[in-house]
């Protein structure tokens, strides 16, 4: 009796665990199904190499390059903000800060990480963009620079806290070895602890950048809805995510190519972020082996 009950419960719990597998299959199947429909009308070559993206008007062009351009320019900008600040914050928290300071700083970082991305969008539009326009009057109301800065701030806590974990995982004995040779705290942290944690730090960078690539609301609000092939951060751009939002805000009926196009774009987004996540995991696994 009890044994039967145990067996049934085990199956129920197994079913819960298998939902994650089904979710992954569901995502891949959904994206694949409509993407295939999309590519029955649009050639892969024009999707990858056409330099215009105008699926919703005539003449329709389906070149994803402007969207990738928009996504990458914001991701690179965000990296320029978040990576240096994040790593320096991580070093400060792991090497210099007193336990008391950490107790205050960590929750602040957690709150920063938990602020909804629409709020970051609002902050970009009403605070950062006006500042940029004061400095560079030619700045567009919707611009990549402002979006980059807020996305950078948004991924900063992730870089800082994951890098801090990696640096703190460097054994105390190795630091002591360096101090015993007459090293200063600066030398111990930058020449021993950080290099030893490098793969963990790298993993955190990749994970944070993949987050930036998938970020949606802040970039939709701050960078605009205009797909452009440009490197000028003061102009508006459209990211892959912002395009998906744009289509779903309108009334694009199922079965049309406009509807299918969001699946194709989402597929590119999914492949990019999944690839980066896997890379980050592999790097982290390698670094765990280093001390065992």
């Amino acid at each position, binding site marked *: 009796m009890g044994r039967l009950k145990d067996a049934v419960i085990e199956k129920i719990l197994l079913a819960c665990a298998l939902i994650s597998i089904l979710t992954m299959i569901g995502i891949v199947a959904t994206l694949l199904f409509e993407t295939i429909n999309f590519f029955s009308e649009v050639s892969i070559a024009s999707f990858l190499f056409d330099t215009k993206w105008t699926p919703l008007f005539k003449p329709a062009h389906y070149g994803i390059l402007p969207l990738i351009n928009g996504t990458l320019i914001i991701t690179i900008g965000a990296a320029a903000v978040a990576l240096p600040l994040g790593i320096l914050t991580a070093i400060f928290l792991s090497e210099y800060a007193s336990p008391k300071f950490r107790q205050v700083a960590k929750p602040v970082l957690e709150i920063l990480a938990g602020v909804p991305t629409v709020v970051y969008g609002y902050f970009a539009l009403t605070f950062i963009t006006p500042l940029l326009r004061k400095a560079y009057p030619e700045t567009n109301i919707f611009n990549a620079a402002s979006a980059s800065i807020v996305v950078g701030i948004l991924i900063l806590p992730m870089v800082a806290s994951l890098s801090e974990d990696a640096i703190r995982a460097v054994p105390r004995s*190795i630091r002591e070895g360096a101090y015993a*040779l*007459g090293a200063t705290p600066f030398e111990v942290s930058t020449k021993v602890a950080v290099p030893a944690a490098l793969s963990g730090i790298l993993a955190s960078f990749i994970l944070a950048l993949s987050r930036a690539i998938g970020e949606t609301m802040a970039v939709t609000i701050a960078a605009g809805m205009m797909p452009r092939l440009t490197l000028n951060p003061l102009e508006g751009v459209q990211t892959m995510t912002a395009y998906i939002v744009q289509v779903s805000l309108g009334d694009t009926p199922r079965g049309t190519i406009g509807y299918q196009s969001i699946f194709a774009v989402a597929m590119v987004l999914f492949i990019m972020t999944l690839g980066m996540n896997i890379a980050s995991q592999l790097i982290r696994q390698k670094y765990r082996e280093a001390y065992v």
Partner: protein
Amino acid sequence: MTSIKIKNLNAYYGEKQVLKEINLDIGEKRVTAIIGPSGCGKSTLLRCINRMNDFIDIFRAEGEIDIDDKDIMQMDPVLLRKQVGMVFQKPNPFPKTIFENVAWGPKIHGTKDKSTLNKIVNNSLKQAALWDEVKGRLKDNALGLSGGQQQRLCIARALAVSPEVILLDEPCSALDPVSTAKIEDLIVALKKHYTIVIVTHNMQQAARVSDNTAFLLNGDLIEYSDTDTLFETPKDKRTEDYITGRFG
């Protein structure tokens, strides 16, 4: 020249006193062993000599430790540690190449010239009796070496900044007997050039390698004399009990 004079040293972890009125003269170019049961304060005493205890927030020390008649309590710890090298209980090579491990110390202290660095690395590895085993693979990661090799690498790393004193904190406790024998030979060879202080819980080791031995118990220095005297005719009853294995 490099003698160490410890005068009226008291040390505390928070409220707890761990070293009590230690007075100890450590002779130059000799091996001095500090023995005693675990928790007697021998490692704490050793770590006072290069101020590694500074990193422990609740640690406090009073008294004087003179190296070449200069009180190290008043010295810059960075300069002090360049002069006083240390080898730890567990080998702790940096996760870098063998070459980088040895060259790291001289580099931070300002040696940039490549050929000078090469010379320092070669000499240090030879002095640490590791050269023959690693000469073909200086670019390999140091974590790939065996435990005994890693510990000799750590000794080479300490020698590379040309210290005058070397502190060894139970350097063989994590090693097999063959590696231990190699390191003991090395210690005896090194005393020609360096003043060596070794902490060990292994009395045979102290007897084998040291010229002088200090016996510590509960933070008190019970007895200090040349090694033969201490092991053969200890003056204090407690020393005798300890070395004959009646406790600890």
